[in-house]
């Protein structure tokens, strides 16, 4: 689905000024970034925070990129190419929630925001997903991330291509690479290997954690209270 209906409003989003500190200073942005349409595939999956979730592909709206036509379009060529590779575009009017608020009626897209600011002294337009938002402190900008909201969105995307849940093959496609990385980390007998192991285990679904590592992910059992000796 196109980001806006044909003949509808252009991609011009809200101006960045919304009455907060950002309106008093020019927003420092990483650089220009065009809008995109997320595409989801039932076979491009990853383990993320203990869940199997889709690794989304971005179909950029950039003219001339991966099949897009020369004029200002909405990524139809790019989307078409990804559809040929088994992807499904995620509609821009899907119901989403970011930072605890519904995105219904968002001016640009349910999952994209448009920011205007400067980068290296030059005015730029930067698009970000709805689960990242800039927070300006003086001349510095940090980006807040709504991780839970993002995961909820990924679940929604997965439901578009796997409405009846995941089959074993899909789970294995997501889990197998992480298990390989875990084995590689186990082969290292040093603190770095242990750190990698901990990080990888935090993403693996608990039911797929190898038996010899279960004690590393299971919460410690509460110790029994002993009667205090007088």
């Amino acid at each position, binding site marked *: 689905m196109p980001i806006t209906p044909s003949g509808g409003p252009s991609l011009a989003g809200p101006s960045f000024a919304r009455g907060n500190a950002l309106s008093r200073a020019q927003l420092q942005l990483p650089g220009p*970034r*065009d809008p*995109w349409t997320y*595409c989801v*595939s039932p076979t*491009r999956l*990853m*383990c*993320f*925070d203990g869940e199997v979730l889709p*690794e*989304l*592909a*971005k*179909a*950029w709206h*950039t*003219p*001339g*990129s*991966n*099949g*897009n*036509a*020369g*004029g200002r379009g909405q990524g139809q*060529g*790019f989307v078409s*190419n*990804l559809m040929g*590779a088994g992807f499904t575009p995620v509609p821009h009017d899907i119901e989403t929630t970011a930072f605890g608020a519904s995105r219904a009626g968002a001016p640009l897209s349910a999952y994209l925001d448009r920011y205007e600011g400067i980068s*290296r002294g030059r005015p730029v337009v930067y698009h970000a*997903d709805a*689960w*990242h938002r800039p927070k300006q402190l003086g001349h510095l900008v940090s980006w807040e*991330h709504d*991780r839970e909201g*993002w995961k909820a969105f990924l679940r929604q995307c997965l439901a578009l291509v796997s409405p009846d849940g995941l089959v074993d093959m899909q789970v294995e496609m997501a889990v197998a*690479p*992480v298990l*390989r*990385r875990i084995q*590689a*980390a186990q082969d*290292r007998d*040093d603190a*770095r290997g242990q750190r*990698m192991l901990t*990080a*990888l285990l*935090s*993403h693996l679904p608990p039911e797929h954690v190898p038996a010899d590592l279960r004690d590393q992910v299971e919460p410690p059992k509460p110790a029994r209270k002993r009667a205090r000796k007088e």
Partner: protein
Amino acid sequence: MAAGNWYSQSGIGDANNASTARGIMAALTEASKNQEAAAHPVMQAMLARDAGVGQMLGAYGYGVSFADLGSGKLAAEIEGSEATPTNFSTTNVTVTPARRAFTREISDYARSLQESLLMGEIGPDVEVMLAYEGTRLWMNSLVDQIAALASSATNTIGSTGVPLTWSALNEGILDLKNRGAASGRAMALVTVKGAKDLADDALSLGGAVQMAPQIQGLLANATAGAYVASLGGVDVYLNSELDTDSGDDLGLLITDGAIISKHQQVVLPREADSLVQAGFYSMELRRPGGSVSRIETVAYNGVAIAENGRMAAIRYVS
């Protein structure tokens, strides 16, 4: 007898010219790393094919068909019987060039660069700098366009939420070889975070890996520019055009033939005030609407993933 003033009593303080002598140099920018990426043989081969196709002669795009040839094998057939024909299958890729432009105002340039030398005409040195900038702008755009394709690569090296490791990259290269794509040069673009991940990981490994010459290449070399090391035949470069994706950096590994580009050369007419006509891009001076003079750097180009098997995204925590 009065000897008068010492001749050395006055020096530069008597100069009437309030301006100091001024040289002009291009300022340091991290975008300079794009020059090295653009000069890699994989990119040069892509551009050579692009140029070899020539002008599009009125077509709106350029397409390549990839025919599935040579993947089958002979099947056992009973003598005297005919084998069933196998249909050809092709995958088509189209690149549609689009206009990209970057404009400078000459007066702004003169103010910024010539200041005390401002005389209404741009001097030859500034003209050269404009041409130099045009080349850089075009290269930055091209590398940016290609780096953006990482998020739609169907093969991924590394995992979300964890640092990049030597073993992950090594496995990715083996997967690339297994897809039949490892012939010729390969280039990887990673952020500095990814390069540090790789170096920290590989240099802390013991045994043969730690001592391997290619791993020694990960010992930082301040004279090697953006080039980091050649790991398993993949030339790894630092780059700042790479995309991010929900907490991860997205690097890119490409081999020859992974990506195609097409540039459409726009031939400027004789009456145009052309500063540079470089084929892949042009620079034109003009005064739109009788206003101040502007110089416009323009490229008509497009890029597309030709064959996903020849490339992979490199994913690691930002």
